[in-house]
């Protein structure tokens, strides 16, 4: 059973510095495409990465590329990682240090909008920046998502 919203809820509860990006951000804005993972852009400091590790500790987190190795981040790994691709009991989480077409965490955070969740505020990449990021990716399903997000944007401008 996958539970992407629970993964997001845990990140918020653990006070991880992150911005929700990718397909789940598109869903949060209203896109109807079903997404299978959680993509976040986060600050790649040791403290923040350890918060992520703690948030998922009881969900058997592993590196997607090495599922035989449980997640056990060392100081050296934290210093060298640019991205962190995880699999947990509740689904896949991609932690990205930067977003194509936008920049690093600080640039992405500038384009975050706050969304309420049952456990607090969640920052989600704003509509215009998400569209720009998805256009930069240029994959087929991103093109469909962009069309939907443009429609959402049009409706927001009218209201």
């Amino acid at each position, binding site marked *: 059973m996958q539970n992407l919203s629970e993964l997001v809820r845990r990140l918020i509860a653990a006070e991880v510095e992150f911005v929700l990006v990718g397909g*789940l951000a598109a*869903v949060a804005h209203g896109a109807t495409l*079903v997404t299978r993972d959680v993509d976040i852009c986060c600050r790649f400091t040791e403290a923040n990465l350890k918060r992520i590790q703690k948030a998922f500790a009881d969900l058997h987190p592993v590196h997607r590329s090495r599922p035989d190795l449980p997640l056990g981040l060392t100081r050296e790994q934290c210093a060298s990682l640019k991205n962190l691709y995880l699999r947990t009991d509740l689904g896949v989480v991609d932690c990205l240090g930067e977003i194509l077409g936008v920049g690093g965490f600080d640039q992405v955070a500038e384009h975050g909008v706050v969304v309420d969740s049952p456990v607090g505020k969640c920052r989600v990449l704003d509509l215009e920046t998400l569209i720009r990021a998805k256009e930069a990716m240029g994959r087929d399903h991103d093109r469909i998502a962009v069309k939907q997000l443009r429609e959402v944007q049009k409706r927001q401008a009218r209201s």
Partner: protein
Amino acid sequence: MPDSAKARSHPMPDEISNRGSALNEGALAYRSAESGAGTGDFDISLLEESLRMSPWERMLANDDALNFGESLRAAMERRNAES
């Protein structure tokens, strides 16, 4: 009932076979692309339905759709293995 709760009320594949009922054609997930005022690429009525929910409710609905799809795929695999 909030829309997210409605989305979760769809029967799972095992329930469908137990009930012997057909898939609900009026349900959100089974509406054809032509049924809404479509743009040709997607069903605008589904987008409108999504926009009536809060962002968090949309994420919950995504989980429901994801798990429904996976349970349907598992049920089909079991059925194929039996036949």
